[in-house]
C-alpha cells in the first residue's frame, strides 16, 4: 500500500495536496504550494482551478514553474488576464477559495514574515518582501500555509508581519474586518498544525509517520501545544509518490536542475 522510502519533503507536499479538493479555486504561491497544488490536480482533484498571480487562470502545467510567470503557465491556462485584473477582480473580488502560501517565518497565530529579519530600517537579512501575500491572506476564503518546520522559521515573535494570519489571536481577525477566514492549516515536513477554535493559536494536530512530538516541539520557537487526539498522517500512496516524482523529474528535465530552490 504505502511506499516505505520517501522523504519528509515528499510527505509534506503530499499531505498538503490532500487538503485540496476537486473544483476548488486555488491561488497558488510558487515553490512548495505550487508543487502541492499541481500534485492534487494530477491525482484526486483533476478539476481544481489553479491561479497564479501572473494572471494565469485555470492553468495546467505539465512541469512545475520556476517563476510565477513561466511560459508553461500561460500556455496551459484557460485564460490569461492582466495583473491588475488578477488582484482586483479575481482575488479582491472574492473568487478564490484557498490562498496557498509559503513563508519565511510564521508565529503561533500564523502571521507571516517575508520582509526582514532584524529592524526594518537596518535589516540583518533583507527578504524579498510582500508580493501578493498580504492581500491573498486577507481576501482568499481560507489560507493554507506550507513550510519546513524549524525553530528559525516558527518563531515566538516576528520581526515584521508582512501578511496577517490571526494577528494576536481570538477574534482579532474578525474585528479587523478581513473578508476571508485566514490560515486554517499549516503543513510542515513533520506534521500538520491547525488553529484552536477559540484562541486561534496553531497547535499540532497530526504528525507524519516517523516524525515525533519531541521533534515538532524542538522545531518550534514557541511553546507548541499538541492536540490530545494527535493523528498520524497516512503515508504516501504508491500513486501519490509516483505522480509527484514524475512531476519533479519532468520539471528537472525542463529546467535543467532542481526547481524547489529557496
Amino acid at each position: 500500500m504505502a511506499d516505505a522510502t520517501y522523504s519528509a519533503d515528499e510527505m509534506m507536499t503530499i499531505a498538503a495536496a490532500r487538503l485540496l479538493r476537486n473544483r476548488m479555486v486555488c491561488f497558488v504561491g510558487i515553490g512548495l504550494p505550487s508543487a502541492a497544488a499541481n500534485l492534487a490536480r494530477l491525482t484526486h482533484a483533476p478539476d481544481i482551478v489553479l491561479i497564479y498571480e501572473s494572471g494565469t487562470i485555470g492553468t495546467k502545467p505539465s512541469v512545475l514553474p520556476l517563476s510565477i510567470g513561466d511560459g508553461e503557465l500561460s500556455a496551459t491556462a484557460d485564460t490569461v488576464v492582466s495583473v491588475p485584473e488578477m488582484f482586483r477582480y479575481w482575488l479582491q473580488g472574492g473568487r478564490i477559495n484557498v490562498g496557498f502560501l509559503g513563508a519565511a517565518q510564521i508565529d503561533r497565530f500564523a502571521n507571516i514574515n517575508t520582509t526582514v529579519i532584524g529592524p526594518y530600517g537596518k535589516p540583518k537579512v533583507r527578504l524579498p518582501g510582500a508580493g501578493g501575500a498580504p492581500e491573498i491572506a486577507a481576501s482568499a476564503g481560507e489560507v493554507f500555509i506550507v513550510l519546513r518546520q524549524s525553530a528559525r522559521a516558527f518563531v515566538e515573535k516576528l520581526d515584521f508581519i508582512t501578511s496577517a494570519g490571526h494577528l494576536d489571536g481570538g477574534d482579532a481577525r474578525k474585528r479587523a474586518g478581513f473578508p476571508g477566514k485566514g490560515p486554517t492549516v499549516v503543513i510542515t515536513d513533520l506534521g500538520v498544525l491547525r488553529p484552536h477554535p477559540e484562541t486561534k493559536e496553531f497547535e499540532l494536530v497530526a504528525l507524519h509517520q516517523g516524525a515525533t512530538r519531541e521533534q515538532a516541539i524542538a522545531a518550534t520557537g514557541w511553546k507548541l501545544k499538541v492536540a490530545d487526539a494527535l493523528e498520524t498522517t497516512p503515508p504516501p500512496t504508491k500513486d501519490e509518490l509516483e505522480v509527484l516524482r514524475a512531476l519533479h523529474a519532468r520539471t528537472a528535465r525542463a529546467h535543467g536542475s532542481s526547481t524547489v530552490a529557496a
Partner: protein
Amino acid sequence: MAELTTLREAVAALIKDGDQVACEGFTHLIPHAAGHEIARQKKRNLSLVRMTPDLIYDQLIGMGCARELTFSWGGNPGVGSLHRFRDAVENGWPNPLVIHERSHADLANAFAAGAAGLPLAIMRGYIGSDLPKHNPQIKTLLCPFTGETLAAVPSVRPDVAVIHAQRADRKGNVLLQGIVGVQKETVLASKRAIVTVEEVVGSLDAPRNAVILPNWVVSAVCVVPRGARPSYTEGYYDRDNGFYKAWDVIAREREVFLAWMTKHVMSTADFADYERSIAAEQPKQVSHG
C-alpha cells in the same frame, strides 16, 4: 507618436538623470536590453519603480543608477536573493537606496490608477500588515457608503515607461501577448514610453481584443531581437532559467558583479554585442544561446 529608432537613441533622448523610470514585465517580457542600455549610458539618480525588481534592477542598483526604488517583491524568482538589491538595502552599496515598499496588489492598482489619471487607488489591502507602519504613503479612507476602512495608495505616474513586446507594425502600433502583467497600465500611466520589440511587421494581424498599444501612446519603438533575455518572449524564445541561477553567483560578490557588468554590458556597444560577449565567455555556464 512612436518613432522607430535605436535603443541607444531612445534611452539617450527619453530618460534623463533623476527621472522616475518603470521597466515593467511580469516575469515574461522583462526589458533587459533596455536595462543594459540605461546602465551603459550611466543614467544616475533614477527613481526606479517595478513590482519585481528582478535581475534587471539588481544590475541597475549595483551599477549605481538608482537613488530610490518602489517595489513589491525583491527576489530572484525560483533562485533566491537579489544580492545587489540586498547589498544596497543592508549596506548602502554602492550608494544608499531609499525604498518604498508596497504589495503586488497595491502596485498593480497604483499603475492602473496612474493609467486612469487618478491621484490614488483604493483597495482592500494591508489589513494587519506592518508595511503601512514603514511606508507613510499607505493611508486609509472610509467608504462613505458602508463605513468600511479601505487602503488608499498613491498612483504611480512615472516619467518613463520601458517595456518589451512581441512586435510592432511599421506605424509603431505594438502588440503584447501572453502574460501581459501591468505593462499597458505602465505605458498609459507614464509621460513617455520606450518599447523594445522582437520585430517590426507589415501588419500586426492581432485577434480582436488583443492587448495593443496604439502608436500615439508610445514615444519610441526599438527593434531588439531577444531583448527580454534572460526573461522570455512568448512565441519567440523560452526563459533562460540557467542564467537566473548563474546570476546568483555573478551578483553575490561586488567585484565579480562589477567585472561582469564592465566586461559584458559597459564595454559592449549594444545588446547584440552583449550576447556575443557572454556567448564567448561562458558557453556552458550561461546558456544564453
